[in-house]
């Protein structure tokens, strides 16, 4: 059910990403001050925005999970946070590269956005260990949802507070702060990274869903469940998915 139109989505994502990268390198002008280095904003900033939005999506799915008790919402929340974590590592790496190139240091403490992002990543890094440490699947799902909502609320609050505490070094990207071509490419970059996030989310959901269906089939065909002990995993237990089989 998650595999529907996945091929079309994947092709669109590949096309948009390729087009965006082509425009970044061959059409967008070089920055007057930072030169070629500035082009990293077309990767770094969209990645950061999509990561944080992904965490918020995870929190919203977690709210839906606690309201409906449908394990599929827990799965959606898990996959959203999982993919955002991977993207987040990319944000920290690209941010570090940019900081080294632009300010001369790999890490800059006076930079509130960088520090806030690290804090958010440190918090979300405990999401999988938390799931892993709770055996009962339903309790694990509820605890994970409580965590996802708390951490989702922490994201904007934390950014506001850390911003208050430091002077402002990070280049701000409000509308109109970029010249025409840059603005167009930047918006396109956000769209393509968001598409990439969505595609990966759909792929992981499809894979989890297919695994659950496969397990149900194996059980229906008389396979002995006890032969394969359930692997300990931080992922939500797929056997609890409804509407499978």
């Amino acid at each position: 059910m998650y595999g529907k139109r996945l091929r079309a989505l994947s092709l669109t994502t590949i096309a948009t990403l390729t087009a965006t990268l082509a425009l970044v390198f061959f059409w967008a002008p070089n920055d007057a001050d930072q030169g070629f280095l500035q082009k990293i904003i077309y990767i770094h900033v969209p990645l950061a925005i999509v990561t944080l939005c992904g965490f918020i999506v995870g929190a919203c799915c977690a709210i839906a999970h606690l309201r409906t008790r449908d394990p599929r919402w827990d799965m959606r929340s898990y996959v959203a946070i999982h993919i955002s974590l991977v993207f987040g590592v990319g944000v920290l790496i690209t941010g570090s590269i940019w900081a080294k190139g632009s300010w001369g240091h790999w890490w800059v403490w006076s930079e509130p956005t960088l520090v806030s992002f690290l804090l958010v990543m440190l918090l979300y890094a405990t999401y999988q260990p938390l799931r892993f440490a709770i055996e009962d699947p339903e309790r694990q799902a509820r605890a994970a949802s409580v965590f996802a909502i708390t951490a989702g609320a922490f994201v904007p609050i934390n950014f506001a507070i850390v911003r208050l505490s430091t002077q402002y070094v990070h280049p701000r990207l409000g509308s109109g702060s970029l010249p025409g071509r840059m603005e167009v490419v930047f918006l396109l970059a956000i769209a393509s990274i968001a598409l990439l996030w969505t595609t990966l989310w759909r792929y992981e959901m499809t894979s989890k869903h297919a695994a659950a269906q496969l397990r149900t089939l194996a059980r229906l065909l008389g396979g002995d469940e006890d032969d394969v002990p359930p692997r300990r995993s931080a992922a939500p237990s797929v056997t609890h998915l409804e509407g499978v089989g």
Partner: protein
Amino acid sequence: MSAPGTRAVVAALLRKDLRIELRNFESVPAMALFSVTTFVLFHFGLQRDTLSGDLAAGVLWVTLLFAAVLGINRLFVADAEQGGFDAFLLSPADRGALALAKALALLGYMLVLELVAVPAFALLLLGPPIGQALPGLVLVLVLGDLGVAVIGTLVGALAVRSRARDLLGPLLSLPLLVPVVLGAALATKPLLSTPVGGLPLRWLGTLAAYDLVFALIAFALFDFLLED
């Protein structure tokens, strides 16, 4: 049987927790001793006899936070291991009452901890005299403690029934408490400087807002952690 009033339930739960603490001395003495030991560690680690300003505020708050983590880790252990949760769930009491009682208990632990830790800090490490700073400091301490109490209650309940609760407690609570340390340390900094500066109202407001937001979140989500 009619459900008892929330206030009575909270009072009963709080009395139970404080009585257990008074009989066993499980948390607060360990927290206090830990804080004094940490001050000694900072003396050797920093190679400084006296601290003032931002360094003093930072050392004080980081120490209080680490001591708080000890209390957070133990907060729900008795309830999880000796059937306190089950007994509470069997009663018709409102579940939010347990969250409120635990937060109040943790707040109490923190205040008692500070009765030891702050004089010890003033005696061992603080350069400027503490007298003039005290009224402002008490206000900042209470606001910081409220944040610790609220977040500690939520995280304690989240971690207690997992296999790795001693690890998860600090890992979950420390990032969530960074804004509390940040606000509290920045509010404390002028108080521990010479000459003593005014109380930064902006940071008191930020701390209070953070406490309030997480109190609402903890209260809204606590129910889901109790179910079986």
